[in-house]
């Protein structure tokens, strides 16, 4: 049994706790529009987590998809993530932003969402409901007739600084479906509850 995080650092690589997330950003449903939508997914994780083989700088962005007869936006975007970790705290979350591409070629923000990733082995169909902020009646009228819906000026309100959430008024939107399979390495014996080093 491992007692301190220093001891983990001495472990050879084969005994580090690792986690694989393999799957797809499948589709969007219930967005109630017929123009193209694209989904941007950004990773956020704690200090004791390390992304392998290197930290990704840019968020994943799917194709622009137009709905079919069943009003499903198919993205079909593969996800293959690999993390090594010293502690279970700060497990990865996905920050989801759905953008819309209208007929004039303008790209506007459509909705936000946060989705935390599972921590057990298995197959998961994650359903992430999304929302977008609303402004006053003038902003809403502007966005309805002209375009350019209101968006968050400080995106820390998504996950980092949750105190900001109580200042935001939002309206519900559709949901993003993410299909993930999780594969854990050495979690049964070696996973630890310890605070990050700093």
């Amino acid at each position, binding site marked *: 049994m491992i007692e301190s995080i220093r001891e983990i650092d001495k472990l050879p690589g084969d005994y580090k706790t690792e986690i694989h997330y393999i799957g797809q950003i499948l589709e969007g449903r219930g967005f109630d529009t017929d123009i193209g939508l694209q989904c941007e997914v950004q990773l956020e994780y704690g200090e004791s987590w390390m992304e392998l083989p290197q930290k990704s700088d840019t968020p994943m962005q*799917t194709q622009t998809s137009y709905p079919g007869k069943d009003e499903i936006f198919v993205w079909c975007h593969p996800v293959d993530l690999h993390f090594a970790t010293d502690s279970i705290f700060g497990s990865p979350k996905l920050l989801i932003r759905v953008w819309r591409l209208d007929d004039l070629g303008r790209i506007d923000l459509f909705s936000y969402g946060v989705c935390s990733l599972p921590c057990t082995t298995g197959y998961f169909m994650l359903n992430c409901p999304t929302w977008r902020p609303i402004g006053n009646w003038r902003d809403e009228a502007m966005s309805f007739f002209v375009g350019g819906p209101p968006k968050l000026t400080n995106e820390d309100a998504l996950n980092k600084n949750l105190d900001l959430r109580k200042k935001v008024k939002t309206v519900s939107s559709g949901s993003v479906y993410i299909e993930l399979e999780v594969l854990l390495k050495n979690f049964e014996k070696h996973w630890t509850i310890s605070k990050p080093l700093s």
Partner: protein
Amino acid sequence: MDPNKPNVVLYPRDDRIDYKGPKPSDSFYDSNLRPTVPGQELFDEYKVDHVPILQGSLEDSSYFYIYISGQIEYSSFIDSDCLMIKYKFIAGKEWERIYGEPSGCSQLSYKSRSSSPKIIWNFPFNIAYRSTCPRGWPQITMFLVGPDFLGREVVKGYTTMHVPLQPGRHERSAKTFTPKSSSILVQFLGVLKGKLPELVDPSRTLAEPYGREVIRADSGGAVNIVFNVAEKNLESFGYTIKKNIL
């Protein structure tokens, strides 16, 4: 198989499908050029007269092995009456294919006149891989091809799907999409010429998460697939496996 021959033949290193590197030529997938030792003894558990495992053979505990068999069953594609499906398996850098065909092309199948029309192919596949890291887990990329109104072959859908990670029998469904023309004029000319928009290198474009943001696509139907997955050595690498998924 000749038992006198040492069982040391593996694929040439260029045969591994590479996400970033140069594309291997299709001649590697020609069955005449493939070595005649497919690693069958790994998967025949009850075979009595098995070939003795020699040094440097496929049985190597520094790899884990995954064997995938299954079939592409049917598609519920609303817009088309008849379709053909092509598949290609693609895996990451560290993965080596040790058995089976990586790509295939099914028959052209028509809808029946039943109340719930499906396009049934029932097209089987068998493939085995070995690797040391699950990163770049194999994906099956599929392209739906069908005739247009003049009988020319056009692409009617693309989709991709990861092979299931857990052993057992899995029934999965993959939604398809079709690339969209950049303008109405190009779309009109494309329909006349029989050249609808296609992806240039489809299986790598589908399997990679990069560069997809430039595509605009229409959503289409779905393809149903059955996977039977068997895994070896994955537990001795420390990975958690759920045993009883059936």
